[in-house]
């Protein structure tokens, strides 16, 4: 799971797994119907999101032994304190208004800032979108945003042949504040206790409604037009849940403050709690309730501790200061759920994990798909200096300032740069070759250009300032696929001409770092010596080091290679002692991946595992995350053998990891080793019994062995854990359909699509069951829904045509 994939709306991969294993039974009455999924799998990292909780629940440890080696890996150290319940709870937070009495200046600055105005309950003050009753027209639907007589903001969705659906707006996210393209989204409350984003977003600059189509038509963010189907919007029906909930493989905990979501297993409903839809004081400073109580009691004066976990941030060192902002302004891999400000971020998230596999960045670590400002870690200002976010951004008012804390005129003020790079300010024109006062004379025009986030597409402007702070290299940038800074103004000049001019002005420019050169060469398909060009143990560049390690694994390593380049091994062993926990873990995982059975490597790994000390848990979780990711990659590509090898390696590092055990079950199930699969699902459930989807997968494996009654019982157990688990209802529907229990099947399928209206296969099989009871009109409605959400399902299209022919197209 990648935190921060804003607007990236894909169905959980776990759901894909379950769907993919639905027995594609075809009723004899309607031959030729086929099942189809038609969606790309979500990033596979979601499978490990429960790692932390799983370890916390670990009850049995068994020594794992490598296939051919004799060295046993030491077990994890006894659990430390980090788990879902450790650290502050929502009740430890006081809210921004509690800060105002004593910290008036900071509060006032914050109140008017982007963070202070990030969202809220809908009102005339914060809604920028048009809620004037003017319809948003799709080709198959009309959506009317309006304000009721009670001042309630609502969307009314009308589709032919269906009752109108009204979605009251419970919350507004965003206010179109961002200069590079600002949007506003809307939340609505759902019956299962979740808050979900509606698919109708508004973008200020263009002044239009738009939606994200990436999971459907893959056209990026596009203005809604009458040429579009409502289901072209990936969030229709609403799926993107507010808060970080593993079931939905979706992290939206940064569009507000102190957001928690938890499934209540008694009621089967989610409990969603949100302290504020603004980004409040405690999002950065941590929980302040105790501090406020001490202040009100007059007891703060003689203690240097502010009380209760709240902290001042002005004296944090560079990395600690960055980490405050990276709570939200970074992609992250989840390793333990339940994060709240005040907890240890690195115990909950692996900041560099998204570099493993997903490639959200170019080889020089500029944003390739969609990301935030974490690639500041690749800037020279970080690598060769100490620059952190608050050196330029006033954290309270979000105005701009220089390195000395002096306020600046705005985002284009050169002093952001020249307060450090004073040499360039002496004669600015000699450096910029542009007239003073012109856009080309601004440092940020060339070194921090606004670059369109490529995953958004090019229809709507959503550009963010490049925080790698690069030197413009027109030819190189263009070859890489990055819009070069010069083109921000000089759109009529060819890349060749721009390069010619920069050559003339600057001659040879600062060379790329060798590790970046290596990654660029690898990306270009050139032959690289991995040891020499990708592995740099002695540099300070964790982001590049992790990125290069992933290239090494993917291009140069194989699980249990017969022989590993000794120089690669030597450098990996050096990287395994890196200061950065992400670098260390991925280096250790790389050695384990390629040479885990080699006796000397195995001894090395065992030695390192035995000496992780206070980093034991952090390193092991990241190590397992890496092996698990590549295990998933093998499994989903059909190579179950290598997947199983890697999963077992992961279990050597964190024995009885429920996510790994679950995925071992999936791999064996795919190999038709159903009995073994069942064993692994049951082992996973023995560690964490509250995994509804594991029970669904267990049920499918049981069905594959013909143990249908036990399968049905497994689905029912899943529903006891999560009463809104659509896939459990769906598979129960299948169970009844196979037994010709059509009324029961219809009932279960209806529940499935009620809880997940976008479940195309649910509609499809509901239609089939309805045909069996001769309810053709209802079957047609279901078949049309199946096509609406999965146009690639030829069987569903055929069903629609046949039913229209039979009943005359009503």
């Amino acid at each position, binding site marked *: 799971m990648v935190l921060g994939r804003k607007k990236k709306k894909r169905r959980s991969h776990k759901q894909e797994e379950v769907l993919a294993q639905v027995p594609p039974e075809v009723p004899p009455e309607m031959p030729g119907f086929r099942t189809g999924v038609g969606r790309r799998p979500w990033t596979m990292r979601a499978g490990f999101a429960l790692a932390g909780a799983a370890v916390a629940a670990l009850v049995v440890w068994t020594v794992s032994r490598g296939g051919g080696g004799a060295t046993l890996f030491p077990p994890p150290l006894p659990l430390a304190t980090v788990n879902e319940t450790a650290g502050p709870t929502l009740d430890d937070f006081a809210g921004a208004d509690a800060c105002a009495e004593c910290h008036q200046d900071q509060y006032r600055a914050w109140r008017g800032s982007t963070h202070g105005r990030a969202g809220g309950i809908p009102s005339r003050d914060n809604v920028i979108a048009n809620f004037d009753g003017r319809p948003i027209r799709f080709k198959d639907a009309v959506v009317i945003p309006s304000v009721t007589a009670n001042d309630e903001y609502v969307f009314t969705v009308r589709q032919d042949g269906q009752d109108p659906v009204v979605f009251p707006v419970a919350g507004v996210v965003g206010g179109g504040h961002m200069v590079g393209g600002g949007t506003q989204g809307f939340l609505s409350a759902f019956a299962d206790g979740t808050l979900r984003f509606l698919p109708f977003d508004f973008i200020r600059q263009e002044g239009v409604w738009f939606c994200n189509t990436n999971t459907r038509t893959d056209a990026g963010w596009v203005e809604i037009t009458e040429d579009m189907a409502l289901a072209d919007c990936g969030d229709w029906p609403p799926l993107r849940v507010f808060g970080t909930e593993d079931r939905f493989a979706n992290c939206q905990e940064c569009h507000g403050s102190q957001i928690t979501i938890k499934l209540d297993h008694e009621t089967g409903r989610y409990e969603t709690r949100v302290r504020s839809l603004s980004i409040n004081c405690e999002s950065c400073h941590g929980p302040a309730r105790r501090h406020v109580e001490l202040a009100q009691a007059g007891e703060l004066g*003689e203690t*240097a501790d502010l009380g209760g976990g709240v902290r001042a941030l*002005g004296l944090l060192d560079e990395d600690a200061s960055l980490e405050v902002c990276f709570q939200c302004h970074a992609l992250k891999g989840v390793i333990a759920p339940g994060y709240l400000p005040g907890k240890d971020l690195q115990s909950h998230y692996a900041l560099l994990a998204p570099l493993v596999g997903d490639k959200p960045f170019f080889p020089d670590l500029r944003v390739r798909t969609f990301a935030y400002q974490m690639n500041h870690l690749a800037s020279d200002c970080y690598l060769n200096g*100490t620059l952190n976010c608050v050196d330029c951004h006033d954290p309270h008012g979000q105005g701009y300032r220089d390195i000395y*804390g002096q306020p600046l005129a705005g985002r284009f003020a050169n002093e952001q740069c020249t307060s450090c*790079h004073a040499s360039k300010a002496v004669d600015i024109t000699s450096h910029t070759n542009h007239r003073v006062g012109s856009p080309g004379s601004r440092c940020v025009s060339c070194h921090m250009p606004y670059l369109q986030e490529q995953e958004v597409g090019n229809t709507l402007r959503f550009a963010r300032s490049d925080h790698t702070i690069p030197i413009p290299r027109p030819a190189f940038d263009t070859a890489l696929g990055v819009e070069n800074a010069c083109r921000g103004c000089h759109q009529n000049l060819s890349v060749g001409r721009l390069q010619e001019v920069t050559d003339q002005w600057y001659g040879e420019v600062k060379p790329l770092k060798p590790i970046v050169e290596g990654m660029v060469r690898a990306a270009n398909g050139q032959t690289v010596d991995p040891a020499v060009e990708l592995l740099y143990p002695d540099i300070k560049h964790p982001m590049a080091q992790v990125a290069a390690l992933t290239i090494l694994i993917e291009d140069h390593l194989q699980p249990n290679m017969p022989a590993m380049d000794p120089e690669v091994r030597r450098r990996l062993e050096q990287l395994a002692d890196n200061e950065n926990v992400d670098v260390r873990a991925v280096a250790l995982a790389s050695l384990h991946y390629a040479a885990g059975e080699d006796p000397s490597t195995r001894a090395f790994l065992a030695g390192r595992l035995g000496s992780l000390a206070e980093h034991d848990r952090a390193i092991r979780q990241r190590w397992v995350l890496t092996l698990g990711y590549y295990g998933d990659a093998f499994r989903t590509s059909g190579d179950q053998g290598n997947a199983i090898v890697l999963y077992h390696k992961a279990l050597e590092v964190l024995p009885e990891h429920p996510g790994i055990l679950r995925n071992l079950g999936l791999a064996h199930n795919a190999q038709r080793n159903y009995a073994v699969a069942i064993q692994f699902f049951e082992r996973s459930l023995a560690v964490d019994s509250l995994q509804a989807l594991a029970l669904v997968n267990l049920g499918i494996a049981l069905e594959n062995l013909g143990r249908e009654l036990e399968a049905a019982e497994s689905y029912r157990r899943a529903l006891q854990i999560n009463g809104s688990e659509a896939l459990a209802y769906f598979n129960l529907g299948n169970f009844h359909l196979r037994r010709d229990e059509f009324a029961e099947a219809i009932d279960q399928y209806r529940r499935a699509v009620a809880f997940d209206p976008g479940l195309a296969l649910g509609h499809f099989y509901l239609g089939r069951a309805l045909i069996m009871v001769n309810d053709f009109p209802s079957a047609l409605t279901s078949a049309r829904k199946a096509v609406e959400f999965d146009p690639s399902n030829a069987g569903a299209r055929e069903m629609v045509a046949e039913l229209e022919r039979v009943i005359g197209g009503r």
Partner: protein
Amino acid sequence: MMRTVTVLFTSLILATTGAPAQQTFVPRPLSAFARKKAEGYLADRYACLGCHQLNGEGGRIGPDLTDVGRRRPPSYIYAMIRDPQTTRPGTVMPRQLMPPDRVDLLASYLAGASAPGSASGPLFLPDRDPPALTAEPTNGAGLYAKYCASCHGASGNGDGYNAEFLPVPPTRHADSSAMSLRPDDTLFDGIHAGGYILGKSHRMPAFGQIFSSAQIRSLVAHIRTLCRCEQPVWARR
């Protein structure tokens, strides 16, 4: 007499900073947290302990700050932080830019740190024994000798008398292999804004408020004579 000095003192501050008039500086009482914060800024963010000692830690170039509150009046401490060159002409202490509330915090801390409750004393002459003013060096060698050599050593070997009191050894400007990797502009920037911005020691102060660009360039040129090296080829244009 006292009144006259006060006015004179305030006008000096105004002349150099353009700040609002301030008749005197009255230290504010600091909480335990604020004192800890002040110590953090003095030791871990600003260059103060590069030259001064505080509670046994720090350099030997300037006077010990541990008991400065006993030796100097609050307004003098405030003024030295705010604008040392005007307050004590001829001092090697460069002005460090910082937000006004931080000047206030550090001055309050230093004024009251060793003598709580007695910090808001009367103003008197900035310095009873003004130093003999000598002509400011104008060339790189002279500037280096006055401002840099105490840490970096007269020959740039990082062996100035103050070096042993620093947590990070001063850069060896005579090291040609290291120095040939650094562009002249980087050296300029480091002198101007201090070691902090280069990821080096924050105890190397920023001299940008007392040196002209020409003076910094002359210092860079002098450093090049110490290392007998040039900047990287890519930086020469």
